């Protein structure tokens, strides 16, 4: 009986095992049957979307977005470098001294400044655009006040004789906030007008005129009619240039600046005599006031006044560049290689005459018959003829 029961159980177990195996096999079977079907359906779905991709919309959308990006980059953002008018341009800065940096083909050529320009008014000559400053004061052990001036080689002390609260004013114009710069650019010309604001001298300012792709420009100083107005000197700084005069004289630029590791000497200028013998307290007060750890600069260079030349040629042998400077009414040229500053003086005659600047690249300069001759890709001929041609063109 027991044996019969055992067989019955084994039979039941075998049946259950087979059913379980059958059930376990079903998902794999299901997977085998349906996976390829699902894959096919998914592929069809994807390819259905792919097939419905309209290339026209993609190309159109891409073009619109690329154009939008390019327009944003071109117009909504500021380029890192300001574009210059070709070939010559000016960037006038409303900073101390009113510098007008002249650029030729993107590089700085020289600087016309209000600080170096000089105007005669009511019989007195002063810088056109200067500055206002208060005196630096130091005191000695007795409470006596001294003014301090820091120079290239020394620090000069002088007993205070004027009201220290009184402002020291240099130049006919000093207020930077009153400066207005107006630019007007057309297809072939650029005008830059600089107005210095109102004051004792009305309507004072510079007019710059540049011409598209031309190597020359002119600058004119203006002021409202006033009988007190005298000579005006256009002043500009130009480093590394020799000066060639109309009569053939070649003035070599002998500017030399040497910096020496040496503390400037403190000199007391009292009652017309200079001395270095000053008290320790006064010396300490000076050292606290002024940074004396600067290098001492020694500077040398010749100067010249020229009144019999219609023009001057500034020639830079390193850059092989010449700049012809001419004014129809120029009374005098002054050259200072000491400071690399040059002036063109023009008299007042119901207004001031403009000054023309003509840049010549890689010129060969020859002299003969009280005139210079230029051989270059840009121009070949006498300088006087070139000036007449340019003045005839731009007026």
């Amino acid at each position, binding site marked *: 009986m027991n044996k019969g029961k055992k067989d019955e159980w084994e039979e039941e177990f075998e049946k259950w095992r087979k059913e379980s195996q059958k059930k376990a096999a079903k998902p794999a079977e299901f997977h085998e049957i349906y996976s390829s079907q699902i894959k096919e359906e998914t*592929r069809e779905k*994807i*390819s*259905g*979307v*792919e097939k*419905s*991709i*309209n290339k026209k*919309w*993609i*190309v159109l*959308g*891409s073009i619109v*977005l*690329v154009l939008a*990006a*390019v327009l*944003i*980059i*071109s117009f909504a*953002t*500021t*380029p*890192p*470098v*300001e*574009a*210059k008018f070709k070939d010559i341009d000016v960037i006038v800065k409303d900073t101390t001294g009113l510098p007008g940096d002249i650029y030729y083909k*993107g590089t700085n050529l020289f600087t016309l400044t209000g600080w170096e320009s000089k105007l005669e008014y009511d019989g007195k000559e002063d810088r056109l655009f200067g500055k206002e400053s208060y005196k630096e004061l130091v005191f000695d052990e007795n409470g006596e006040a001294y003014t301090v001036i820091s120079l290239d080689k020394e620090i000069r002390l002088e007993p205070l004789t004027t009201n220290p609260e009184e402002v020291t004013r240099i130049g006919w114009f000093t207020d930077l906030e009153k400066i207005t710069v107006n630019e007007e650019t057309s297809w072939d010309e650029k005008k830059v007008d600089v107005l210095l604001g109102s004051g004792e001298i009305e309507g004072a300012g510079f007019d710059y005129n540049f011409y598209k792709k031309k190597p020359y420009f002119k600058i004119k100083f203006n002021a409202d009619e006033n009988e007190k107005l005298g000579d005006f000197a256009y002043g500009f700084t130009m480093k590394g240039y020799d000066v060639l005069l109309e009569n053939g004289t070649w003035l070599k630029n002998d500017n030399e600046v040497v910096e020496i590791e040496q503390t400037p000497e403190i000199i007391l200028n009292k009652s017309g005599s200079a001395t270095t013998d000053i008290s320790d307290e006064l010396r300490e007060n000076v050292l606290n006031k002024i940074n004396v750890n600067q290098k001492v600069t020694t500077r040398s260079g010749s100067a010249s006044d020229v009144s019999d030349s219609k023009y001057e040629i500034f020639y830079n042998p390193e850059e092989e560049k010449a700049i012809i400077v001419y004014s129809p009414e120029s009374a005098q040229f002054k050259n200072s290689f000491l400071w690399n500053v040059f002036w063109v003086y023009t008299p007042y005659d119901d207004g001031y005459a403009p000054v023309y600047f003509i840049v010549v690249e890689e010129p060969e300069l020859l002299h003969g018959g009280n005139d210079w001759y230029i051989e270059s890709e840009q121009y070949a001929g006498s300088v006087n003829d070139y000036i007449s041609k340019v003045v005839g063109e731009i007026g």
Partner: protein
Amino acid sequence: MRFNLSYEERRVWEHAKYIFSYVFQTLLILFLIVLLVKEFYPSFIDTRINVNWFMLIVIVFGALSILFPVEKTERKEEFNLRDKLLIIGLGVLGAAIIFLKLKELGWIGYVISILGGLIIALLSWLLLTENDEH
């Protein structure tokens, strides 16, 4: 995160993904051309375009095209003659550009430009054959 999109939405989204990809490729090529021109004529580019902003826009579209890549059915392409010519062309162009920048160095300029050209060609070849080996 997955979104259940309708067929129409999915269709629009697929279009957008293609647009991101093409805009990125176009802007990247333009950006590289601008950089190349800037190497030789810096003032020409610096007075017209702010390259930093350009780069920012390229990065934005680059990120979009990487985050949302285009789903493509696999298409196996053979490495053909056109690819070989492209590799040679890129190598020669690269060598010429390097030479223009380094010609002042003398003989070392020639060596560097030849090696540079070879590296460009080799990298291009590796890049184009990479998919086939996968």
